[in-house]
Every structure is written in structure tokens, then in C-alpha cells.
């Protein structure tokens, strides 16, 4: 049985979330706009117009390149990529060819056991072969033998990032995209939503016998608009290539399209003109001078990256992988957790539990991000400390979460205001316990007759009368004493 391995490279186009386009001052985001309303002479390629580079696009590019461990070039250049297409008004795309913003780079991709062929987690180093800035083209749709062109998206800033042929399974590809999406949102440089086209991915797939190092002809899969679809499409293609090779056929360098409804790959019309884009230096732009002063300013406040933080949460806080993964899935939640832990000073796992369950549920229910909660991390810490000190019990604590969020008052203030403090006063509990027993003679008799389980009911009744504030342990002791 011949064993094959897949050789996969991913080419991603990332729409940066700047305010404006890369070479003009139209909006970068026009998802909801009517066609050809978010346009100007520059992005429509009118005669006589000139591009003017958006500083923020460069800065976001630098953040991404740094996160990918790429080397930022001190001088980088734009080039023209010339071809004809109706969504490309100038007839060329301003891109970067040989002296792009950044060079090299890698991502150490953790592949979890669930996505691993042999059930063991591992790390795949994915190298970056290209990382450059370029402008987006417009959109076209076809209907009735004609093409309808909308220039709203022309000139939106993109980073094109291409991996080396380093991925080996469809699952790895999905993992890479998941991590990339997380990273882009973490850095605040892109919404990275594949369904909205602000993260696009083409996959290059080839196969070879396991252990070989040659690169066989590859096919390119385009137009896949979700991570799951990428995974499925690649899986299908690997299977198809293996089938072809086993049948003695060649693999041709086709361009394929994934039809998600039918779950099949289709051959796309091959590029009709040759791929000679006749790149040359863009004479209308000067090179980007990334001097140390500027770079330092951009990287001031460069955050700890999600995978690094995940590792640190495991090692420094002793959290299980599962917790660390959830607590570093999104940056604001992660920052919330860390602040809460530092303020609390106690067991981080405790904080983690409350976060992963109650806080996360609250965020989902209310459609908020962690930084938007009135119940901030310091107050969560305060709440936990109140429970630890015995001032309130756990169930009071849980109900306090909602109360704090709605009122905007601190837990301590609410406890005071609503008199929520646990009652540990023996006499008060004793009085209520006597009340309960007096009101329920049948149950008293049943208990004395051997129905021990009724103790829980009696405690519950005391708690109810005391509006949950009684210390249940003391209530139980008192009842036991009274029922002797």
C-alpha cells in the first residue's frame, strides 16, 4: 500500500480594517453600500489620477509581519501588476513584487489531538514565503451574458500572505486559518471574517509519496468562503489526486472551484492570458521608508500574542490547556481574565471557572465583548473575595453577577444596599428554624420517624424564609439540634 502525503500551501488575502482605502480617502468598508457609491476618481482609475499611500495600512502590515516573525525591510517598493479585467479600473494592480514590506517569517501552528491523524497533538512550523501590501479590486457579478461591475471595493488595503508548501493535512489548513483569524482580530488589524470576504483563502494542493521531497504539480482551489469549506475542499482534492495517481493519470495544474452546496470541486476556466504581469516599479509612489523611529512607534504596545499567552497561562497559572485555549481565544476576554486574576490574588482556576461559565454566558446573552461589561474584572475579583470571606454564599454570588451588570453598582455596594450578606447569626437562624418547624408539624413527625432526607427540605425552607442569606451550614446545625 503506497502511502501518500499531501503538500498544501495557503495563499490568503487579508482586508485591513483601516478607515480608508490604501491609495485614496474613500471608506475601506463598504459592505452595505449601494454599488458605485463609495468611489472617487483615484480608485476608479480616471485619467490623470495618482495614488497616495495610507499610513495606517503600512502600520497594520508591520504589526502582522512582526507577529509572523518576518523581517521588516527598511526600504520597500510598490510595483505594478498589469492585466486586463473589468474590476481592475487602472488595468494594473498596485502591489509589491520583489521588495515587499516584509521578508520571511513563520507561525508555529499547534495541531490539537482532535485534528491529528494519529490522535497526538503536535506543532507544525508553517513558513511564510510572501507578505506584501496591495490594493483590492472591485466586484463583478454576471447575469444574462453580461457582467455588472461595482468599484466600491477597489483600493481596499490588502495584505497578501502566502505560506510555503508546509501543511500536510486538510485539518492543518483549517487550524492555520483559525489561528490566523484569531491573530488578525487579536492585533486589531482585520475583522478576518471569511463569509464577508475580509479574509480570503486559496489553497494549493499536491501529493507525493510519503518521504519524498519533490514538489509535484499542484492545483489551486479558489472561491472557498469558510474555514470548514477550505478543509472539506482540500480533503476532496487530496482524495481526487490520490485516485488519479493510482489510476496512472497525471495531475494537471488546474484551477478549481468549490461548490459548497453540491460538495464538489469544479474546474474553473483557466486564466486566459498568460501570467506575465510585466511587473515594474510603480513610478507614482515613493518607496516606504520604515526607519527605526517609525517602527518603534508602531510596535509600542505590541501585545503578547494569543499562542504565547496560551502557553503562559498554562505554565504561570497552572491552567489546563482547555481553559487556556478558551481564555486566549479573544483578546478582550483574555485581558479581562488576567486583570481579574491579578486583582483577585487567589486561585486562577477559580477565576477561570467563573469566566468560562457565567461570564461567557452573560457576554453571549447580551452580545457584548468583555471590555463592555459593567461588571469589570476588578468587581469579579471583589465578588469572589466576598464569597471566600463568607460574606455571601455561592448562589448569592451568582445572582449578584446579573445585578451588578444591570445596576452598575459594585458587588460590595449591592450587598450592603440589599442586605444580601449571609446571615451567620445563630439567634436569627434559630428563630427562623423554630418558625419552620412550627409551621410544618407533619414533616417534623416524618423526619423524626426516619425520613432523613427531609433535613435538606428544612434547610431549604429556612433559606427561603431568610431570602437565601442564611449560612446553610449553620441552619443545618441548628435544625439538627432542634429536631433531636
Amino acid at each position: 500500500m503506497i502511502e501518500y502525503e499531501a503538500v498544501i500551501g495557503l495563499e490568503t488575502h487579508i482586508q485591513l480594517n483601516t478607515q480608508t482605502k490604501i491609495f485614496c480617502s474613500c471608506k475601506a468598508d463598504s459592505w452595505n453600500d449601494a454599488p458605485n457609491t463609495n468611489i472617487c476618481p483615484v480608485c476608479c482609475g480616471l485619467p490623470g489620477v495618482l495614488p497616495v499611500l495610507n499610513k495606517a495600512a503600512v502600520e497594520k502590515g508591520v504589526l502582522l509581519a512582526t507577529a509572523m516573525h518576518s523581517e521588516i525591510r527598511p526600504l520597500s517598493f510598490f510595483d505594478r501588476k498589469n492585466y486586463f479585467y473589468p474590476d481592475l479600473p487602472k488595468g494594473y494592480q498596485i502591489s509589491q513584487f520583489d521588495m515587499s514590506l516584509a521578508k520571511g517569517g513563520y507561525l508555529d501552528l499547534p495541531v490539537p489531538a482532535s485534528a491529528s491523524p494519529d490522535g497526538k497533538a503536535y506543532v507544525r512550523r508553517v513558513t511564510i514565503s510572501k507578505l506584501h501590501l496591495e490594493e483590492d479590486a472591485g466586484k463583478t457579478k454576471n447575469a444574462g451574458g453580461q457582467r455588472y461591475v461595482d468599484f466600491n471595493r477597489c483600493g481596499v488595503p490588502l495584505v497578501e500572505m502566502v505560506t510555503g508548501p508546509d501543511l500536510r493535512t486538510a485539518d492543518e489548513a483549517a487550524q492555520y486559518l483559525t489561528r490566523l483569524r484569531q491573530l488578525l482580530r487579536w492585533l486589531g488589524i482585520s475583522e478576518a471574517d471569511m463569509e464577508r470576504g475580509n479574509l480570503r483563502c486559496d489553497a494549493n494542493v499536491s501529493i507525493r509519496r510519503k518521504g519524498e521531497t519533490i514538489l509535484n504539480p499542484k492545483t489551486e482551489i479558489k472561491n472557498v468562503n469558510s474555514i470548514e469549506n477550505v478543509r472539506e475542499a482540500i480533503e476532496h482534492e487530496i482524495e481526487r489526486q490520490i485516485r488519479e495517481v493510482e489510476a496512472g493519470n497525471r495531475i494537471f495544474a488546474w484551477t478549481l472551484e468549490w461548490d459548497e452546496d453540491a460538495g464538489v470541486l469544479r474546474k474553473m476556466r483557466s486564466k486566459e492570458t498568460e501570467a506575465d504581469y510585466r511587473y515594474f516599479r510603480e513610478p507614482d509612489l515613493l518607496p516606504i521608508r520604515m526607519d527605526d523611529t517609525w517602527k518603534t512607534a508602531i510596535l509600542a504596545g505590541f501585545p503578547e500574542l494569543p499562542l504565547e499567552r496560551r502557553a503562559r497561562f498554562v505554565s504561570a497559572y497552572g491552567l489546563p490547556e482547555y481553559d487556556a485555549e478558551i481564555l486566549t481565544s479573544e483578546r478582550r476576554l483574555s485581558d479581562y481574565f488576567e486583570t481579574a486574576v491579578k486583582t483577585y490574588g487567589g486561585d486562577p482556576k477559580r477565576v477561570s471557572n467563573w469566566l468560562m461559565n457565567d461570564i461567557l454566558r452573560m457576554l453571549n446573552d447580551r452580545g457584548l465583548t468583555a471590555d463592555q461589561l459593567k461588571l469589570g474584572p476588578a468587581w469579579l475579583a471583589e465578588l469572589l473575595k466576598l464569597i471566600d470571606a463568607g460574606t455571601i454564599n455561592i448562589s448569592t454570588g451568582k445572582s449578584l453577577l446579573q445585578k451588578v451588570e444591570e445596576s452598575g453598582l459594585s458587588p460590595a455596594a449591592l450587598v450592603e444596599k440589599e442586605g444580601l450578606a449571609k446571615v451567620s447569626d445563630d439567634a436569627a437562624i434559630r428563630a427562623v428554624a423554630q418558625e419552620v418547624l412550627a409551621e410544618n408539624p407533619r414533616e417534623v413527625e416524618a423526619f423524626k420517624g426516619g425520613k432523613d432526607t427531609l433535613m435538606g427540605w428544612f434547610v431549604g425552607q429556612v433559606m427561603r424564609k431568610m431570602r437565601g442569606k442564611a449560612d446553610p451550614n449553620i441552619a443545618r446545625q441548628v435544625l439538627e439540634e432542634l429536631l433531636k
Partner: protein
Amino acid sequence: MELCDLSAHELALYLRQRRISAVEILESCLKRIESVDGRPGTLDSSPLTAEDEQKVHAFITLTPERARAQAEAVDRKIAAGEDPGPLAGVPFTVKDIFCVEGTPSTAASRILANFRAPYTATPVARMEAAGAIMLGKVNLDEFTYGSSNESSAFQPSPRNPWKLDRVPGGSSGGSTASVAAGEAPLSLGTDTAGSIRQPAAFCGVVGMKPTYGRVSRYGLIAFASSLDCPGPVARNVTDAALMMNAIAGADPHDSTAANVPVPDYLAALEQGVKGLRIGLSPDYFRITYPNLQNGTFETQPLPAEIETAVRRAADLLAAMGAEIVEGVPMPNTRFGIPAYFVISRVEAASNLHRFDGVKYGYRTPQPTNDLREMYRRSRGEGFGPQPKLRILMGMYVSAAQYSEQYYNRALRVRTLIRQDFDRAFDPSGPYRLNALLTPTTPTTAFKMAALYGDSVLMQYADQLTVPANHAGVPGVSLPGGLDSEGLPIGIQLLGPDYSEDVLLRIGRAYEEATETDPWRRVRPQALA
């Protein structure tokens, strides 16, 4: 003398002094145009008549109503005691390669014949902000591709006012012809290989190519983006300086417009040339032509009359205190045209990609279901032969397999050409020049149809001007006399980056020294 024959600075002065009104100035220019220009260039025009051959035909689109409204506004401002601007009331023509909002902005091509620009080019906007009055759009070689203005899709193409059977030069032929014929005192042209200086020489006017990046290119329909320079055309140096004041300077719409302060070009204009070092180069007293039969280069001396004019200028400047430095080598001058053939074509082919019939300009009326067919027909029908030549050469020499051999090589030759100028102007070098004095063109104005059709010979008309475009340095052509046929001779000054003020100063000194020369009193044939 008519108002329209006065200089811009005189008109501006008299206007401020309320001796004349802007409307009167405008009327004078419109009357001159009516008298000498004949029919404007149009598409698919009827064959030339005998009368056509006696007219200048500088215009494509005259905009008298718009001009009148502007002139009236200037007069109102003056009446109200407001400052109308340094160029207030001064009419100017605009080479139809610039977008001006609301006007047909055609690039003298069928492919843009129906294009009405929705915005205005920065240099034009600055002129109008200074109070100048735009008379309309003047003719040019199609997309500025040419040295005779004959390749325009809008015929009749302009004729040289000095001798109406001669070309005005190109590509800014309409600009220089309109100024030489007294239709306007100023014109805004562009210079990519000499397209202001060469026609200025042919038409006996002043034409300046500023330093690359000195004047914004925003709104200039691009030919070669790394070479194109908007610049002034005028009948005297002071007017050119006045216009430079209005148009020079950085622009947030142009990333290549340098962040270099703009001096007052009038300030030092009369300071003279004492102590300035002005060089002469043997490489500019030779002209080279390729012999296409045996593939060699032939060198000929400059026509004697042109050489004489340059040497006389050197003598006059020396008499005024300049130091003339002979024998300055500029050895890479002869490679200017070959390098230009490559660099400009690569950029032009790319710049013309956008004319595809999709979103503006000409689209083929032939119905088709095939996008590629629509592209081919629209471009095939819309472009004249000159754009096609440039596009195809550009595609050829930029193809991946040739780019090292042609394009990258040409860019490196460009470095050598620049180094010639660096060495000549280096303040601690062997020559330490403030300027280089050269002829502008290898010949005076040739006859209409004499060169058209031979694209190589036509391009070589620019061999003395194109090196400055490669190097980016500024240059100005000044009227330097008339040849034995009565045709203007141009002399050229080239200087270090951003030295326009010095070049103008030298030009002013030369102008003063030749003020009483008999040739300055001769009128062009069109005005006789």
C-alpha cells in the same frame, strides 16, 4: 500693440492699476484667436483647405463663456477692492492632456473625445486660484506621443505661426503656437522628452521643464509617470517665472511632488550672471542618428546657425560676468533616446491599460458578447497609430524574458545619464557649474509631413532635451534668434535640481542683452 500681445506681467500690472479690465483683455485674445486660429481640431475632420493652411489651429476646445465668467469675477473683485491674485485677468491656454472639470479632456485622442473630466488638475486649479483666465484646451500629439503635434486625432493639427507650412513642434504644439500667435500670453504644457522645450524652440517662445516633482502631476493624463513634468510656456522669462510661482509646490494628491520649498521665482530674476559658471559640452554640439540600413550610429555636427546662436549666447553671458566653462563632458547624452524608447514605452503601455471602454471614454459601438472583443475593438478603434506603437513596444520590452535586457538595462543607463549631470553640477567636482548652455533642438522647425511616419527620426528630434527628463533636472528653452529661413532657434539652459530660479535669472540676463536685437522685432507669418 494689442492687449493680447502684451506680456502677462504687464497685463497683471495694468489690471491692478485699473487701466484695463479683465474682460477687455479676454476680448482682445478672443479676437486674435478668431483672426488667426481658424477652425479648431475635430475628429474625422474634412480635408485641409487652402485657408486652413494659413491658420494656426492651436485649439481643440475654446471655452469663451467659462472664460468670460472668470474675467467678470476678476473685475468684480478689483472693483470691490479685493486681491484678485498675482495672475489676475491673465489668459492662458491648457494643453488638452490636463483634466479640467466640465470640459472635454481628450488627450487629443478619439478614445477620450467624449470624456468630460469630473475634476480639475492641480496646476490648472492653481493658475485659476491665482486669478488667471483659462481660454480653452489646445491641441497636442495624441497622448503627448510625438514631436510635431501631427499625430493628433483632432485635425487640423496646429501649425507654426512663424511659417505656417512648418510644424510647431510637439507634443505641446498647441501651447507654444497659441502663445507665439498672441492668442494668450501663457500656456500650461507638459514635457516628457522635450515636449515643452522643443516646440518652444520651434515657435520662438520660452518653455520650461521644471525639476521632476516640482509641479504636481495630479490631473495630468499620464504618459511616462517617471518623466512627465507640467511646465510654463510664455513669451518672456519674467512671465515664465510668474507662472512658476503659481504652479510649483507639493500637493497631497501627488506622492512624487517633492516637499521642497518654493522660492519666489521673481525675486532674484534681475540679479544678473556675475560669477555664475555656465558650461558648454561638446556632446551637445553633435547630433546622432541611427543608420537603419547598416545599424550604426552616425554623428553629424549641429547645423551652423544653431551652434552660432548658442556660442553667441555664451559670449553675451561672459560679457555680463559669467564664467564660461568649455569642454564639459556629458558622454551619455547619446543614449538618451534609446533609453527613452524603453522606459517611456513601458510606463506608457501600462498607463494606457485603463482605456478599455469599460468606465469612461470610447467604447466600440459594435455589439459583442465577448469582453475581450470589446476591449480590442474599443482600443483598436479609439487609439491612433502613435499610442499603438508605444503600447506594443512597451509590451515587448517589458515582457519577463526581456526585462533584464531592455527595461532594467535602460534604468541603469538612466543612472549614467544622471551621473553626467551630477558631475557637471557637483559643487566640489571638476566643473562646478550653475548651468549648462546647449542648443534645444538639432534642427529648426521642419515642414509638415516631412518626418511623420518615421518614428525613429521623429523621436531623435528630442535627443538634446530628453537627457534632462531622464535625470529629472530642470531645463528652459529661450528664443535665441532666427535662422536664415526666418525660423526660430532655441537655446537651452539646464541646471541642478530645483535651480529653476537660477536658470530663469540667466535667461533674463540673456533676454536683456538681446533686447534690441533685430530678430526680436520680427513678427511671425501668422501675424504679419
